[in-house]
């Protein structure tokens, strides 16, 4: 699948993957009897009951069976097949799992899925237009060959897109501040910053057009 002309194939494999995930989800739910079912049934408080959630991800309403202790990163990756969101540390220490919730960057590893029920989640998969046109910040990466191994890239992209919503015309220093919650271990910070600055310029250009 590491072929140049292979974008179509990637899409196909994602569909396959989602099929697999639904089966996997069933396995998870069947195993859940191991854990304490709600011992406080009858509580009037919201959230004590249902596990089947509808979440708004990338503009789509997605249903998933979500354990109470499940993080958004886990749900996205293992229940919804959105593996673009990476887990680098699972401890809010690397930023690879950054997603936008109501346009604000969060570490998806440190958000319980049950708490985003009525909010809009945007992941790296939702950045490009449905027709496949890249988001200007994504285009900035292409333009500048930003990033090396790119495991951190989805997180950086989301942090950047989130930050640029509040400051569309940042200096390099300001943007670096905005991206300072994301770690790159290839330490390609200089090129990343260049790519993200380019992305910001692309965005301004796009909004002018």
């Amino acid at each position, binding site marked *: 699948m*590491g*072929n*140049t*002309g292979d*974008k179509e194939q*990637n899409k196909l494999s994602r569909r396959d*993957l989602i099929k*697999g*995930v639904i089966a*996997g989800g069933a396995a998870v739910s069947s*195993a859940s*009897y*191991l*854990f304490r079912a709600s011992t406080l049934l009858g509580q009037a408080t919201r959230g004590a009951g249902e596990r089947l959630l509808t979440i708004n991800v990338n503009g789509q309403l997605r249903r998933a069976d979500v354990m109470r*202790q499940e993080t958004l990163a886990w749900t996205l*990756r*293992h229940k919804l*097949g959105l*593996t*673009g*969101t*990476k887990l*680098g*540390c699972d*401890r809010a*220490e*690397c930023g*690879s799992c950054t997603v936008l919730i109501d346009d604000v960057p969060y570490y998806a590893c440190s958000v319980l899925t049950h708490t985003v029920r009525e909010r809009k989640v945007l*992941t*790296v998969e939702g950045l490009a237009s449905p027709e496949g046109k*890249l988001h200007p910040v*994504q285009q900035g*990466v*292409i333009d500048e*060959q930003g*990033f*090396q*191994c*790119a*495991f951190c*890239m*989805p997180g950086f992209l989301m942090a950047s897109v989130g930050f640029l919503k509040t400051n569309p015309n940042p200096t*390099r*220093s300001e943007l*670096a501040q905005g*991206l*300072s919650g*994301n*770690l*790159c*271990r*290839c*330490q*390609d*910070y*200089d*090129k990343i*910053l*260049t790519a993200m*600055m380019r992305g910001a310029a692309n965005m301004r250009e796009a909004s002018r057009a």
Partner: protein
Amino acid sequence: MPKDTKPAEPAARVYGPGHKLIGKDYETADLYAKVTGVAKYAEDYHADGMLYCKLLLSPLPHARVKHLDVRQALAIPGVKAILTADELPPPADTLTDNGTVIRANPKSEKALTMEPLYQGEPILAVAAVDEFTAAEAIEKIRIDFEPLPFVIDPLDTLRPGGPNPRTDGNIWVQTPAPQAAAGSRPPGPPPPTIGVLKWTEADFADAKEGRLPMGKTPDEWSYGDLQAGFQNAALVLDETFVTPDTSHQTLETRSAMAYWQNGKIYVHTGTQSTAQTVPAIGRWLNIDPSQVVLISEYTGGGFGSKITGGVTLVIPALLSRKANAPVMMRISREEETFIGRARPSMLGRMKAGFSKDGRIIALDMFVIANNGPYDAVGDSPSSGRIVSLLYQPQAMRWRGATLLTNTPPRSAQSSPGGMQGIVIMEPVIAKAARKLGLDQVAIRRINCPEGKASFGPVSQGKRPYATSAFLKEALDRGAEQFKWAERVARTPKRIGSKVRGVGVSLSCYVGGTVGFDGILIIKPNGRVSILSGIGNLGTESVIDVHRVAAEVLGVPWEKCDITWGDSSKNLPFTCVSGGSQTTHAMTRAAHATAMDARRKLQELAAKKLGGKPENYDVANERVFRKGGAGMTLAQAANYAIQLGGIYDGHEVSPDLNKVTKASVAAIAGQGLIAAAKDKYPRDGATFSYVASFAEVEVDVETGKYYIVDFLASADVGSVIHPRALGGQVLGRSILGIGHAIGQKWVFDPRYGAMLSTRFSQSKPPTILDVPVNMQWAALDIPDPETPVGARGVGEPPVGGGCASILNALSDALGDEIFRRSPVNADTILTSLEAGRPMQHPLMAHI
């Protein structure tokens, strides 16, 4: 924090004059998938019925499992299998290409163990329907340990009567290979065994002054007259310096997913070499490599820690067989800290004699590397060779030992040994320059290697030498671009509590190997399909090197398709992407392959259209006679299939590696197939060089400092892909900078337990720890000993990144502040307060 008002990037650089592709920026084939999030790393795969596995790690640094009871764990519904060390297959011997058997070492690391040799070593693994169940199961396992003596600090095991990290000793001993029986092939060397190295109390007496004690070492070499050198020296310095242990901390951990299908094991994991991880997996599982399929399209960083994946990947493979289902082993960040490899800390002592003008006339180098419990890393010997090349001492002795300890296993990390050697040496040179009243650039210029510079001891009658070195040019160019002279002359150095300092460092490392293969297919549709066995770990060499083939063939890049990342896709024998070999080794292989294609095209054209092959030229997707008839590549491909034999891969050159031969056999008939081994001559060993410059601003009231500016000026031969190169030059510089500004391991000595298991504790640099505008430059002078002129770049900037910061700090604060790295507020402030270095350099893991 200093405000950065410097303008952005310098004017666009032009590289690769006369080339269409080489030296030009382009969009790599993997970038779209990466940027859209569809690029799949090992952990992103999912298979129907997939189980998850979790590891039970040793809480002790050295112990024996006394009692193990897994019944309660197995009784939990959803727990499918438990794998323990006794179920691991014995590791297989290796048969090298020339038929030598390298025997597997029974004392080497295995995926699981009942005698853990470091805290965090995996003992067993549980596969269950999900991670929650697996975790519950592990908590139900009863396990008792018998604690055994342990060692965290290598000096402790050297003390008379000190504890040994392994029951049989503290050091690897290589016994010589037995003589070959007459007429038979030479047997491989026996596996190294473990011996004991202890020093005397007298050896340690010296340590009381904060200097590294120097007892006997197993390894030693020298050249020149050391004694005479010291006698003639105008200045002799004797300095101790200690570098930190640092985890590789690839952002992607060594997660792996595996399943069996039709008798083959399919493994998804990150690796630094698609081609060479296959035989490694075969060895670990004791099966034939032909039964192994490795899928590794994207690897989230390697830096030396995933050279052929990680041995732990056998866990999901074996659990998968046991439970008869695919198994995903997600490695957590904490687990990665334990099993994910690290650079060994090095304790070094340098006695250096300088002439009045700063030339190093004698150098006595002594190093101890903290190896962890398993296979020896080569950092210690490598440090000696790199220092001898980089500073060209007229006489030199190197002594070194690699001590075993009960700390996580080490492996090569970008510039293994080179980084430590440079970081131990550079402060000595900086101090000498101050003592001798010399400029820091000037003293480095006078010691700089040039041309076919020699290094290391005499071997087979003469000292080995480099293919080329243009470090002087890189230093000069860097000094100019960094405005070195201006910065040095600037006054005042101190305003209020802020002091500025500038530092420069030389740096180099191995820049390439030779002798690997390439395969490309000119398809009947006229497209060129290139097969790449290189790991895709982010440097882009997986794709970049093939620009050379397209350039040679005159094929537009858009017509080339690169296949990588799946060992079932008939990849050639390729180097591992470690030690900065890939760009050099694989541009040579790509060049050889393209030349093979070119020759075949010429022959095909001559056969079809008449004339001599050499009358034909290849360009613009055609092979043609000058000003006359020709055929398109598509036509040539069809003709190749028609002719068969050597043209479509049914016959291959005997030079090729067996892996390549097997791949060619599998694709024979698909078009014009070119497959060649790099047999280009090379006179010398390949190295790349960097001159690094840094300016820091220190607040002497808080001990806090900022890096104001940084520049790395590189001599890496011809530039292939400027943006990727820039990313590597600065990226690896920052890796080195991390060693100066904060990365470390901290252990509790009482329990031998690592305390710095989180990023907030081990402190990898963030984007705000480096200047927002870093600069790099590359000379783009071709190396004369390789057809494309390109050398590797990954490792060379690392040592300079670290040492330039340290030198800038000592320029700002004086020589008597620190004797170890990283250097932080605590070191600076306590030393400034006391007026002398307060941190004991030899105390490990603070």
